[in-house]
């Protein structure tokens, strides 16, 4: 991974702990496995510039991360969903203030081989029919999904069971995390999936949107229709825009870090979180997610500086149709 230097002059203006002074201490992080790669990438880069700070990133799931935050065992919680009202209540009860920082968007792409001419779009219902556990060994041909499609085998490719992508896809499509058919090519290595779909005319696969964007020429992206017109009519093609504005549902979502407000007083935590915001735009792309856009990261920087406590996302009914700028301002 390329070493990313902090963007522009932000680093020097926002705090007194500029690169010249040595920051020491510890930053404890835990939570979602989906956010883990971003935080881990940030931690690695951060350690190059601040070798005296010990950053520990754990993976105990979003819920587990919040539990630890409530017990003040960690400074930062990684989360692949907004904090729940229940969790906020527990934090309030313990008189703990926190800062909510969305850091990236996670979008999944549903793809077929470019030689596949018949699939124009897929509905969430159809995807559910294909991937639910009951389909195992039964839904094996394209015409079982839509009668007008050819009487040919369908070859499925998808994320492996150890990946956050697998959890997210099964939750969003099948309705229960980790609930999926097992008779498909399952790999944690997205390149295997790209290779498989791009060389197999009967393939259907899913993986992180960023991997599609890196391999546009050899894959065909399929728009997904969730049959809910309030978040955009008909089938919607994932793009940076539809992921950001929340119309590509249910396969896109924002990812967060939640910082304990009292920890921000510690120089190590403060400079780490600042570094995170300054470098997230590049690093989230490296690990396969969609960035919020430069201007939004600037807003996050303000949020951190003002120490704005509480959650704006917990109040939302859904992530649909959100405008990140409006929420952050």
């Amino acid at each position, binding site marked *: 991974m390329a070493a990313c230097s902090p963007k522009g002059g932000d680093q020097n203006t926002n705090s007194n702990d500029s690169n010249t002074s040595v920051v020491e201490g510890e930053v404890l992080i835990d939570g979602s496995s989906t956010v883990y790669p971003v935080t881990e990438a940030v931690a690695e880069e951060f350690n190059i510039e601040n070798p005296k700070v010990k950053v520990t990133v754990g993976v105990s799931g979003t819920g587990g991360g919040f539990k630890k935050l409530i017990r003040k065992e960690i400074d930062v919680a990684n989360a692949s969903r907004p904090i729940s009202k229940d969790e906020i209540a527990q934090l309030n009860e313990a008189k703990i203030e926190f800062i909510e920082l969305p850091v990236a968007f996670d979008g999944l792409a549903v793809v077929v081989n470019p*030689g596949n001419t018949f699939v124009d779009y897929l509905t969430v219902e159809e995807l559910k029919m294909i991937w639910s*556990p009951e389909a*195992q*060994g039964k839904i094996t041909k394209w015409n079982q999904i839509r009668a007008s499609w050819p009487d040919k*085998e369908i*070859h*499925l490719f998808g994320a*492996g*069971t*150890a990946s956050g992508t697998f959890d997210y896809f099964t939750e969003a499509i099948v309705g229960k995390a*980790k*609930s*999926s*058919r*097992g*008779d*498909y*090519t*399952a*790999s*944690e*290595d997205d390149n*295997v999936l790209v*290779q*498989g*779909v*791009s*060389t*197999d*005319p*009967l*393939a259907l696969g899913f993986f992180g949107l960023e991997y599609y964007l890196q391999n546009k020429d050899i894959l065909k992206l399929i728009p997904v229709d969730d049959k809910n017109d309030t978040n955009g009519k008909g089938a919607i093609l994932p793009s940076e825009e539809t992921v950001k504005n929340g119309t590509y549902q249910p396969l896109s979502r924002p990812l967060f870090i939640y910082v304990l407000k009292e920890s921000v007083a510690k120089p190590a935590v403060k400079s780490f979180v600042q570094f995170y915001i300054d470098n997230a735009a590049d690093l989230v792309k490296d690990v396969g997610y969609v960035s919020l856009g430069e201007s939004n990261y600037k807003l996050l920087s303000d949020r951190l500086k003002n120490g704005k406590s509480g959650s704006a996302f917990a109040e939302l009914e859904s992530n649909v149709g959100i405008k990140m700028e409006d929420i952050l301002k």
Partner: protein
Amino acid sequence: MNLKEKIIEKLLLFCALVTIFTTAGIIGVLLIQTFGFFSEVSIIDFLTDTEWTPLFSNKRFGILPLLSGTILTTLIAVAVAVPLGLTIAIYLSEYANPTFRNYVKPALEVLAAVPTVVYGFFALEFVTPLLQSIFGSGLAGFNAISPGIVMGIMILPLVSSLSEDALYAVPKNLREGSYALGSTKYQTAWKVIFPAAFSGISVSVILAISRAIGETMIVAIAAGQQPRLTFDPTVPIETMTTYIVQVSMGDVPHNSIEYRTIFAVGIMLFVITFLLNNLSFYLKKRYQEVYQ
């Protein structure tokens, strides 16, 4: 005997024992973990269930899809390597002039020195697209036929070289006797020399089969990762070795049932190659011709 002699003797014994203990250690680890596996999964299910999905919520532990993947790729490899290898062996030992033989045999053996990861990408990036351009788009990008063929090329020198050694070792007077009775070169090669060298040839073929069954990198790269009970060579499959790689590389927690599956699959592989090696030992003894 002086002390020096004794030390050297003990050292040599130690070296010999290291290999035995290593084997015993491997078998021990396999057995312990497999025992843990079979305390949770019935051996009947393991051997008869037709689905293999231990990493998913609906866990099924039927080895048959992985076994069929291994057998399918191995059969394709053998179908390529045995006819080709035997023809080459007979040509080199009976027809080719000695100078030619001295150049070609080492050249063939170079095939065995190619790293298998290179063969894997050769299958994925060259053979599969080539087959797709010949036979049309019915062939999936990951399939059994292409790694099977490439694996056949990989084990080709094993068959040709060992068989050629066996043919070459057949005493000259058998050839001369055959010619004296009026046989042609072709008749001599196939009806006299080939049967005389049969034990050596069968050993070479079985060694090649063992090698193909245990081959990992080629199939992991080019055959796919989808356990599927099929003998259709055009669709993605998964072999036993690929499964072990897949799980070893993933984030499966130690001592979970998912983790133990790789030992159960490992011992299955071990049993198969063990049986094959014994078969080759038996054939060697049974069919060996002794000449004075």
